[in-house]
């Protein structure tokens, strides 16, 4: 198929950006979206233009590096996938496709479609862990049985890939789905309960510092999340936060 592309080009963080038109032809439905961008970039290199910069790595939907905003949706029109897993069969010959970076105050553009998501790392460093040293001298892994439903729910929250689609999608640029996924995972497990209060307070504090907005329960993040992280995590985080604020020491 032949496609028209309108792509955000921005040389660096301080320079202004704009949408630029491109054409690609002979695109097969079996290509992934990023493979289509590969085709465009080969074309640009051939004609001595600078290729479009975009983040990507594993190309199997798990590393969370790819981050395009396609036709007004994070990771494009398909559900439950990242951009690298979006396939061109979702588009038709002659389509015009708008491709932009994830936009949010907390995610400044580095170049073209590449944004800086290190705010997520800083939120994690504020409390997204269990304070246990990696000495190996812990108790036997089966010493504390964990009810399967709790373990499963913790796992579901833990599958967040930290891509930032939730932030890009949210009208408030809120990072609450991301933060609540980690808060929930650890709050649901006995190992994480010990410092649950401190954790939720510190992570939320850092989240606010990074300039992410608040949650107004629109639910768009859940819809666009490639891993189906549930909105109920945000509800859990709010409960944890409230109880920690009342009873915590911070």
């Amino acid at each position, binding site marked *: 198929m032949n496609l028209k592309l309108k792509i955000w080009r921005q040389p660096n963080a301080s320079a202004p950006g704009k949408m630029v038109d491109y054409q690609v032809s002979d695109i097969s439905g079996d290509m992934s979206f990023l493979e289509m961008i590969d085709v465009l970039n080969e074309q640009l*290199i051939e004609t001595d233009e600078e290729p479009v910069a975009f983040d990507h790595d*594993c190309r199997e939907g*798990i590393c969370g590096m790819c981050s395009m905003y396609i036709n007004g949706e994070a990771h494009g029109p398909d559900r439950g996938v990242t951009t690298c897993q979006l*396939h061109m*069969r979702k588009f038709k010959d002659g389509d015009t496709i708008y491709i932009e970076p994830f936009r949010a105050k907390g995610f400044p553009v580095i170049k073209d479609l590449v944004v800086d998501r290190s705010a997520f790392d800083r939120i994690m460093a504020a409390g997204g862990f269990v304070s246990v040293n990696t000495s190996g001298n812990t108790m036997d892994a089966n010493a504390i049985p964990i009810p399967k439903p709790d*373990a499963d729910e913790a796992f579901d929250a833990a599958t967040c890939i930290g891509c930032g689609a939730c932030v890009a999608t949210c009208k408030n640029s809120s990072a609450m789905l991301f933060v609540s996924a980690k808060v929930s*995972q650890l709050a649901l497990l006995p190992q994480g309960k010990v410092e649950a209060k401190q954790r939720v307070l510190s992570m939320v504090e850092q989240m606010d510092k990074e300039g992410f907005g608040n949650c107004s329960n629109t639910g768009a993040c859940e819809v666009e999340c490639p891993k189906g992280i549930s909105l109920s995590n945000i509800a859990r985080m709010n409960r944890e936060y409230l109880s920690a604020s009342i009873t915590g020491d911070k």
Partner: protein
Amino acid sequence: MSKLNSRIPEGPLAEKWTNHKSHINLVNPANKRLIDIIVVGTGLAGGSAAASLAELGYKVKAFCFQDSPRRAHSIAAQGGINAAKNYQNDGDSTYRLFYDTIKGGDYRSREANVYRLAEVSANIIDQCVAQGVPFAREYGGLLDNRSFGGVQVSRTFYAKGQTGQQLLLGAYSAMSRQIGKGNIQMFNRHEMLELVMVDGKARGIIARNLITGEIERHSAHAVVIASGGYGNVFYLSTNAMGSNVTASWKIHKKGAYFANPCFTQIHPTCIPVSGDHQSKLTLMSESLRNDGRIWVPKKKEDVEAIRSGKLRPRDIKEEDRDYYLERRYPAFGNLVPRDVASRAAKERCDAGYGVNATGEAVFLDFSSAIERYGREKAAVEKIDNPSIEKIRDLGKQVIEAKYGNLFQMYEKIVDDNPYETPMKIYPAVHYTMGGIWVDYNLMTTIPGCYAAGEANFSDHGANRLGASALMQGLADGYFVLPYTIGDYLSNDIRTGKISTDLPEFEEAEKSVRERIDFFMNNKGSKSVDHFHKKLGKIMWNEVGMARNAEGLKKAIDDIRALRDEFWKDVKVPGTANSFNPELEKAGRVADFLELGELMALDALTRNESCGGHFREEFQTEEGEAVRDDAHFTYVAAWEYNGDPGKANLYKEELKYENIELKTRSYK
């Protein structure tokens, strides 16, 4: 002169590690604060090493080329992690895990290293659970296990098909805690481009800031390379797009020997190539072989009918199917090790039984498992005389709970529903057993330079068993390196900070700048990918699943020619002082073009078939690998001397004192 001294501790196998730990030198806590360690790579090995070293009190600088340490490619590991916990009471033990790993590696790994790996495996699970890694559990609340290839026990711990993700996020959270405390300084979007040596010791690196293009000097008392494997030399592999050999290759060129480069793992169950546009291949976890049966039609006319779409797989009658793994290897069936399963698939496809248009695919069929689980579930739910539809429905629910994300991935890529029709799969490059040579302490032949995880060669011999990569990465980083590195650093407590103004730093920086300038000014006519794809084809055709002397010689010539062409004609757009992915790729492909030749040379020198290294000249009449223990029970360690094709070979003889060398049989 060879520098190979494996430094295997004295004493009985089972006591070596404990004795060694008790007798090596330590660095006291006050002195640790004065010592800097650089860790390159933040996957399971690098991430766990960085976190553990920082917890001990060292000052750690960690580097990754991704935008966050959480994105290292360990994240994509699917099936699970082995540990000799014997929770299933099915006869597992440290010794059995050790034995399975040595045998699975086709008797080409070090006994002492592998035993240590098996010994610390149980601790890994304890550690990860303590960190909040949500492993799969049974209804009683205890941990669940499954089976992987090449073993007859269930010792694999898992988190659906996302075990690597959960373990890496565990290591990343441990790192995050130390980053928050200021004990790890994290350098995201940085790539190591040179090792700096001072007085014969590793003392720092030159790194490029991938956002600004700035060239930076970083000094330390020791450098740990944990940058993963080199499977991307094949262009198409299950590795991430950015996975590369550059860090390993730079230290190799500075004096670290490269061991067994030809030992590459071709994974049997990947989604087949669909066209020339393909940029990477996607793995379908080995865990699927617990429940999936692999087959092709027995009759050529059925093969034709399937390829042309006249028949669907389910139309082929049971007696007309060739479950070739069950036929050839009844004792292990579909759970033979990866090398064996891959070759068997290639054998059927080469014989003309491949089931897709390219003739390079076999079926992985879940229908028997769906029925089996469906009946089980119907019984549990007390449904009398369930219909076959009901049984299949219930069975699908069980399969979804176990492998849901893998089935979804398959469906998105192939546009076919694997719950209804068998998956089509074919072998693809997945892992590299070879890597930087290290001694028992994980130190390379450069003093103060260490290699951990997939980047080193140490534990998997000629073939890695499924679910053992995660085990090795975390063992190296959490439990081995933090001890052994102290022994070396105990001599550095009076050294003080290493200055980056030393002439050695200046010189290393200059060589990095020269190379970058070359790329920017070359004004060639072909993109980096053009050369990478060509290299990949050479490697896959001649240094892939089956190799022979003639093909390997041809590969060496072809790679040399391609390398010349690359330096003459490569075109790198953009500028050096900005975010420039093409420039990053150019440096990586330049290194692959040298490594590829060394791999072919190593494969040519090893006149035997073992594990993932299959030389067509050395096979039985039934096509089984023929090892030559009399001549090749050694680790091939290559020293760089300016030309990868003329590298010097040193041999580390492998001594088997606890296991008898036997022909590997899974029949």
